[in-house]
């Protein structure tokens, strides 16, 4: 037995060092990504400072920009909440985009009809429920294949996502098509029937739902028996089996919860912002949120921070695309760089730690 004997002071110092390294671990990749992204801009003859300044002004510092960024956070956060559930349960649900879009399309088609007959609170409630049911059922096939036959859910959920996106298009073009419009799209939900705004901002209350969902997911994972069971399934399935947990049921629950939250994101986006869905609309939020959830190390509170950062980049980047002729895809370049540098710093840090340990 190696007894680790340390006096209190050394422990304190070590704790401080750990906090510092944790902050550095997140900040360093961000700074490096911005610097290298700037170099790329320079190479294309754009002034990086102008670009970053513009993105910052339009996404964060202007009133409308900030409100747009916060509004954009709502679907992203709900997807992130779903991803946290799945990832912490060791399940790689990469099908969130299909789950999101299918739920969104059903809500978009039904909400205008329901709104003609029912009070708005009831409409929202029913829509949320429909979104959860639709997306959770879309996740059942990969979940069942994983639980029953051990088939890799990365592939199956991704394939189901492509199918889901295609099915959503079919639905918009044929049964849910609004004949009153020339382009295939669903009937538009009246602005008055959408999710209420907060005060006199343009932000709808879906953001509150989203933040609550992320925090609730974090709480469930950390502070409930269900959370611990899901974590166990994720970290060591053999141990979970040894402890008598029902692996199959837990896998299906985790998948359904994950997809359900992503679908809720779709409902919130339709009811709060879009009001209608045109054919071939696929924002592919899920694929963008995945790296953020990794960056946050599945921590709910950190996810809120990263999603905010990303929403600012998105909104600012969309404005910059129009004004500075830098395509808004450049935001994805930044996220990719962020991931890259995250991996590099992680690798270097592990190396350093190993060398220290001998």
């Amino acid at each position, binding site marked *: *037995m*190696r*007894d*680790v*004997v*340390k006096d209190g002071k050394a422990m304190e110092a070590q704790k401080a060092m750990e906090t510092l390294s944790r902050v550095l671990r997140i900040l360093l990749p961000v700074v490096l990504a911005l610097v290298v992204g700037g170099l790329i801009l320079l190479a294309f003859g754009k002034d990086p400072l102008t670009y970053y300044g513009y993105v910052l002004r339009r996404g964060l510092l202007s009133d409308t920009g900030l409100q747009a960024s916060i509004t954009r956070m709502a679907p992203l956060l709900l997807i992130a909440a779903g991803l946290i559930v799945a990832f912490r349960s060791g399940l790689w649900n990469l099908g969130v985009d299909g789950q999101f879009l299918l739920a969104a399309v059903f809500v978009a088609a039904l909400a205008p009809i329901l709104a003609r007959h029912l009070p708005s609170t009831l409409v929202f409630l029913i829509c949320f429920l429909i979104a959860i049911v639709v997306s959770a059922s879309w996740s059942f096939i990969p979940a069942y294949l994983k639980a029953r036959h051990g088939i890799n859910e990365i592939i199956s959920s991704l394939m189901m996502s492509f199918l889901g996106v295609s099915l959503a298009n079919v639905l918009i073009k044929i049964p849910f098509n609004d004949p009153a419009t020339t382009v295939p799209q669903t009937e538009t939900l009246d602005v008055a029937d959408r999710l209420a705004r907060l005060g006199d901002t343009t932000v709808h209350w879906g953001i509150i739902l989203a933040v609550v969902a992320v925090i609730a997911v974090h709480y469930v994972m*950390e*502070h*409930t*028996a*269900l*959370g*611990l*069971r899901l*974590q*166990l399934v994720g*970290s*060591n399935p*053999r*141990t*979970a*089996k*040894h*402890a*008598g*947990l029902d692996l199959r049921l837990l896998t299906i629950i985790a998948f359904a919860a994950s997809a359900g939250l992503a679908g809720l994101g779709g409902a919130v986006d339709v009811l709060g912002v879009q009001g209608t869905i045109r054919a071939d609309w696929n924002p592919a939020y899920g694929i963008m949120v995945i790296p953020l959830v990794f960056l946050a190390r599945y921590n709910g509170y950190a996810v809120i921070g990263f999603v905010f950062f990303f929403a600012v980049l998105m909104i600012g980047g969309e404005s910059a695309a129009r004004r500075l002729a830098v395509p808004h895809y450049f935001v994805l370049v930044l996220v990719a760089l962020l991931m890259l540098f995250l991996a590099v710093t992680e690798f270097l840090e592990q190396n350093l730690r190993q060398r*220290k*340990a*001998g």
Partner: protein
Amino acid sequence: MDASTAGPNGIAISLSDVTKRFPGVLANDRVSLTFRHGEIHALLGENGAGKSTLISIIAGMQQPDEGTIAVGGATVRLSSPRDALKLGIGTVYQHVLLIPSLTILENLMLGSPWWRRCDPESVLPRFRELSKLLSVQLDPDALVGRLSLGEQQQVEIMRALWHGERALILDEPTSMLTPDGVKELSAVVRRLRDHGVAVIFITHKLREAYELADHISVLRLGHVVGELPKERLGKMTEKQVIDEVITMMFGRNDLSKGAEAALVGTALDHDGLKPVDRSGSPALALHDVSTTGQFGECALNHVSFDVWPGEIFGVAGVDGNGQKHLAEVLSGQRPVSGGTVMLNQKDVTRMGVPARRAHGVRYITDERLDEGTAGTHSVSVNLVLKETGKPPFWRNGITRWGVIHGHARTQIEAYDVRTPSEHTPIAKLSGGNIQKVLLARELSPDAKLVIFNKPTYGLDIQSTKLARDRIRRGAGADNAVVIVISTELDELMETCHRIAVMDRGELRGIVDNRKGAETEIGLLMTGARVPAHA
């Protein structure tokens, strides 16, 4: 490279003043040792004495902070395992590190550079040469996964010697082997010694060291505390050697008889067991139990036996003959394909783990880290793993971390678990301490059936003794049935009332544990049938 390139005086490797520090620990403190060609050098010491660090330095896995290593008379820097292998220093670790889905030859070719074509013809001569040297007969095209553990170890030895036969390091090589396997290994090791290889042999078992070694070195807390060179060892009796080594290892020789017996591996004192009252009905009754196994697993085939309250029932047999399935069937982890399991006159055949646990079933698995615990989770969580969702640790599904950590502190104290804190991830603990956590989780006075699977596998002497004492006392429960599954006959002879022998998924027979039982068990292991005693 062979013995002809030996350094002065037949010295293969010499360490001088090797020091290695880890944060908070001095693993090796100015260790100086000499390993000679044609000598089996046993390294003895308790867990944490610094043996593992020392061999990882010789194997090139770690670099010393101070001191020098000389190989064949020249000072060298072993900065990677590859360097060590190139110098003809190979290591065989405790756990087999071969790829089961590849053939023997393919495994041996793994170390070659990536640009070279995999050409079996070019490696066959070396394979034949080593087969001859080891005097073993293996089919080079056999899949490693189909070999016995002993054969896999022979392949490991070949791989270690692939680039030269200067030195062979064996890290607790007998812990996975059957008695016959141990004999075979001893023969191989002696042959290698006679060929001029410097063999470095790490073990917990004094008797093995005495039988095999030409030179014994004892480590304690990172120091070399004593050596018995060839000249002295030759003149000493077994008793003298053991006394002397125990004095070195513990700095005293007033160890209890039990500890000494565990050290030496000769404990046969089964008189102290509480007698079993077999007048009533059995507490555990298996009737015609069969299971279905996946590829590579040995399933149960019509197993029946009865065990009475308070009885300690041993299951002997070579590893991989259905013991794992038996343990899993008893614990409720594995469904049966036929037959019944009755516990205290209640049919528990269809019950899962939680229901059986509620009926007093406890299972201490042999795979402590892969199955018994979740390595990345804290000691606290692992202590309540089988209670998730139940009061007092959870209330309405909400985790009460304060209660869980408090419970952990009490258990850590009660079971003397050495851990920095209850928040430490359990994978950071030593094997013995992980075992203590498992025991703390599983044992309780109200247990009705306790299953131990290889309870002392990989444990050091003190922990082994503690574990065996605990089993002898009925696992801390009042009149529970205790099932001990072990591949070490000594252990079963020391702890059990009756011993059953398993072979290819069948129960070959049950033997009362009395003087001379070994022969009967040995007969059963080799395939003879003896009617079961009831």
